[in-house]
């Protein structure tokens, strides 16, 4: 399993690296697959609503009504019909890639099981939507789908009479079955929408919209395709003939040719087994994670920053239970916690400057307490030598991060860079443990812990609480956002930071800021 994941991870990294050449990191479509899925869903929904206005749901008029849309309002109808099909196909592409990528990057175990598990039935609904949609056109492809699907369904012991009997010839054809398909094609997408909503329930700030530039580019591409190569119907269905050679939508119908070589019952069994295997992957094997975050009420003032920053909604602010003079306290839902430590990074009490004997913040990971982070940082810094010493705080998802180590470079690994309180950067420079600090996390838009990179960027830019202190010169702080395997990118950022340290301004001490005249007059 790990070999498979590793292979997939390296493959995605390579492909995404290629896309990074063309797209800004946050626009990289591979880092926006879920959001693109939502985007395509809305395109399909909007174009579908438009088509339904003109679509005649009667069996004998359906084909004609679609032809009318195509021929009499090409400027809108043709584009809408084509967008409806192509966005549906694109949805399959991004959903499959999304599934493969989340598997390869091991983003389905632990707390993330919920999103993975609820995503599996979505696959079935997605295919039900697409297949029922093709049925409604009632052309030769629809005829094939109607017959093949009902014959396949009849291999299940659930129908008293064979449903395929409805399509044996023109005389047997009934509009009632067709009406059922219209109903299914409307109801299933609505159920799917509900499931999509459930799918993202355990994520704070789920990404449901791709960046505007990527959305605009994707939509424009689909419109161009719709104009240049509009989706058209095939010959009208005729049940008195056999559909022999059919233009095929392989995104939705790839499984159908198997029905000509594998008994339908066996295919159902195979799909059922495949679905179960997919569904249990999050527990194969279960994720061994650090102990979940714990709150220390003596140091929690109920400020709510941890709850605000938690990417998995694992922290809520509950009523105070210890009688302290604060309204609320942080409460950790252990089943949602991924032990990323972002809450500790957000806590204003996680400061290494504290003189208390025990550095105990309001919230932290028991398996990697902030006091231990301070001890590691101090030990790492004291071992550095040279004039351009750099302390690297890096995400454990970055492969070969330790290889950045050198006599003048020390590496401290974190579960997520979001765990790093900005005060540590100030502290490292103030204590002269290093001349510069490099924070190295996942690629933009692809943080393994979802929001750690975002929050760190904002904290260091002094846009988000807790802020990096103003006295820290920007020239001494480097930020590096690279894919896990991009060791060269990290090394280049590190080298660039080190080369600028000799001329970078010094940290402003309190005395310098309050008595500039004295200091300069020295």
């Amino acid at each position, binding site marked *: 399993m790990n070999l498979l994941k590793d292979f997939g991870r390296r493959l995605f990294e390579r492909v995404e690296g290629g896309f990074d050449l063309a*797209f800004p990191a946050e626009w990289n479509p591979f880092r926006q697959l879920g959001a693109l899925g939502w985007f395509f869903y809305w395109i399909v929904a909007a174009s579908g609503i438009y088509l339904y206005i003109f679509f005649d749901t009667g069996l004998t008029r359906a084909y004609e009504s679609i032809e009318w849309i195509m021929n009499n309002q090409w400027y809108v109808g043709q584009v809408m019909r084509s967008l409806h099909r192509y966005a549906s*196909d694109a949805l399959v592409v991004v959903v499959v890639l999304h599934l493969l990528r989340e598997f390869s990057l091991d983003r389905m175990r632990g707390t993330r099981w919920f999103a993975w598990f609820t995503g599996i039935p979505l696959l079935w609904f997605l295919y039900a939507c697409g297949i029922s949609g093709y049925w409604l056109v009632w052309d030769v492809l629809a005829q*094939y789908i109607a017959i093949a699907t009902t014959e396949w369904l*009849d291999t299940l012991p659930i129908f008293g009479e064979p449903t395929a009997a409805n399509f044996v010839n023109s005389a047997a054809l009934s509009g009632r079955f067709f009406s059922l398909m219209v109903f299914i094609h409307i109801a299933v997408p609505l159920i799917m929408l509900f499931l999509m909503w459930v799918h993202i329930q355990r994520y704070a700030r789920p990404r449901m919209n791709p960046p505007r530039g990527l959305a605009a580019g994707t939509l424009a591409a689909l419109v161009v*395709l719709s104009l240049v190569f509009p989706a058209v119907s095939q010959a009208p269905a005729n049940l008195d003939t056999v559909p022999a050679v059919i233009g095929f939508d392989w*995104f939705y119908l790839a499984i159908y040719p198997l029905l000509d070589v594998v008994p339908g019952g066996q295919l159902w069994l195979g799909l059922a087994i495949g679905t179960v295997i997919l569904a249990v992957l999050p527990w194969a094997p279960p994720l061994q994670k650090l102990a979940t975050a714990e709150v220390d009420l003596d140091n929690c003032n109920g400020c709510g920053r941890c709850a605000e920053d938690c990417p998995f909604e694992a922290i809520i602010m509950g009523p105070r239970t210890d009688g302290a003079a604060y309204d609320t306290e942080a409460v950790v839902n252990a089943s949602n916690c991924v032990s990323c430590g972002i809450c500790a990074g957000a806590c204003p009490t996680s400061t290494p400057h504290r003189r208390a004997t025990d550095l105990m913040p309001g919230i932290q990971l028991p398996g990697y307490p902030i006091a231990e982070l301070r001890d590691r940082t101090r030990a790492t810094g004291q071992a550095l030598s040279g004039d351009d010493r750099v302390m690297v705080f890096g995400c454990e998802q970055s492969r070969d991060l330790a290889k950045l180590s050198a006599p003048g470079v020390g590496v401290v690994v974190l579960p997520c860079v979001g765990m790093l309180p900005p005060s540590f950067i100030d502290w490292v420079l103030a204590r002269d443990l290093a001349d510069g600090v490099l924070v190295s996390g996942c690629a933009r838009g692809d943080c393994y812990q979802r929001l750690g990179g975002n929050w760190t960027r904002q904290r260091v830019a002094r846009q988000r609480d807790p802020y990096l202190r103003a006295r820290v010169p920007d020239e001494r702080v480097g930020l590096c956002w690279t894919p896990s395997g991009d060791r060269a990118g990290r090394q280049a950022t590190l080298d660039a930071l080190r080369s600028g340290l000799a001329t970078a301004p010094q940290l402003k001490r309190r005395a310098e800021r309050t008595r500039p005249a004295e200091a300069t007059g020295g």
Partner: protein
Amino acid sequence: MASWKYLLQSVLYAAFIALIGYFSVAPAYRHAHPELAVIKLAFSHAAERLEPCRKLTPEELAQLAPNMRRPMECERERLPLLVELEIDGELVFRAEEPPTGLWQDGAATIYQKFQVQPGSHELVARLRDGRDTVGFDYEQAASVELAAGQNFVIGFRAAAGGFKFQ
């Protein structure tokens, strides 16, 4: 953003829509041989009951509540259908199809497809739905002329006299 990046993006978008556009209709799938015709044997029919209905005796009727009295007592379970199809003198299908339903009291269903060359064919369909163990209750023959790609259906309706070739 550098202009060459926009160019590269355009190339990737073009590749994406080419992928979507092509595989949404191609390559065509050959589901059946276009030069062949298909004969479908497809129908549902309820065979006779496994045990014949029996008239209740006056004593049995008297034991029933007045509103529950009925002249005949019938078991639910039905016999299987025995169906045969010959094409040009060759027996291509013979099956004993059980009745559907949890109580085996529903109609038995037949749904079979046979690919044949276009042209003239002699068809003979037979069905047994009674308790006789020899012979058939229905037998019907037809000479048909089939075109390439034609879908020819052999149905069955007892009320209409038996097999229906269409």
